[in-house]
């Protein structure tokens, strides 16, 4: 128990150091490198918190895809970040941030303790899921049973939304490339 807390505190302090340097760096490429490192450490912390599926997603999306997407976007951007001057509107925004953050921290004192087995979240449906999912559905993994059967319509809707979004992006990009190739073909014909 104590060693777990020490490991997690160690990882969180690493993440804090990396985040501070992300804010301070002015070169965009270093920011991207540091952000990738940050999400790798975050994934390591998810593993140590026993949330392996979240760690999987964090590693593949946070450290993998988003780093490469940022790099691809970087080739269209200026390499150095412009130093912004400090203006007084920022103080107003900062005070609002601090106020709302303080309110949320104050509200969090009313929440039940993390990991307490008498919490309502552990009493309400979870015991039914754990006891019944194998008999109701026949899938040994509880998470899979919840995602694919108890919340099946929800997952189905999510999949449709993501599929539609991907299809829309593909159609937009496809039309643009089609027009460009048509233009270039017409130009070549008119030159001849």
């Amino acid at each position, binding site marked *: 128990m104590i*060693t777990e807390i020490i*490991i997690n505190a*160690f990882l969180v302090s*690493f993440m804090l*150091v*990396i985040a501070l*340097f992300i804010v301070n760096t002015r070169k965009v*490429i*270093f920011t*991207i*490198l*540091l952000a*990738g*490192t940050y999400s*790798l*450490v975050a*994934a*390591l912390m998810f*593993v*140590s918190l026993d949330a*392996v599926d979240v*760690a*999987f997603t964090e*590693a*593949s999306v946070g*450290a*993998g895809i988003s*780093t*490469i997407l940022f*790099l*691809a976007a*970087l*080739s269209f951007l200026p390499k150095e970040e412009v130093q912004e001057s400090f203006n007084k509107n920022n103080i107003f925004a900062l005070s609002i941030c601090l106020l709302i953050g303080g309110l949320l921290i104050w509200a969090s004192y009313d929440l039940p303790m993390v990991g307490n087995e008498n919490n309502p979240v552990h009493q309400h449906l979870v015991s039914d899921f754990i006891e019944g999912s194998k008999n109701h559905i026949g899938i040994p993994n509880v998470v899979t049973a919840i995602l694919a059967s108890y919340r099946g319509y929800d997952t189905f809707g999510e999949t449709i939304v993501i599929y539609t979004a991907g299809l829309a992006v593909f159609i937009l990009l496809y039309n643009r490339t089609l027009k460009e190739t048509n233009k270039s073909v017409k130009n070549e014909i008119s030159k001849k």
Partner: protein
Amino acid sequence: MMFLAILFAFSVCFLLILIRLIAGKTTYDRILAANSIGTIVVLAISIHGFYMGRPEFIDISIVYALINFIGTVAVLKLFDKGKLGDK
């Protein structure tokens, strides 16, 4: 106990590499440091699995190793060609 000692050694390595990542002289220093941090994370996940008594999750470290490799290749390609992709 051995696994805990190994984890401690990894954390010391992590600290040294982090210093190199933040205060590296050239860009290539930093790229190498980011890659090494990925390697340390892969090793730490494997050792952490054995330390907690659940070594089933070693597959994740394989995924991490692959992602780390792809990321490093992308950064180096950006430096070599100045852009990613074909066009």
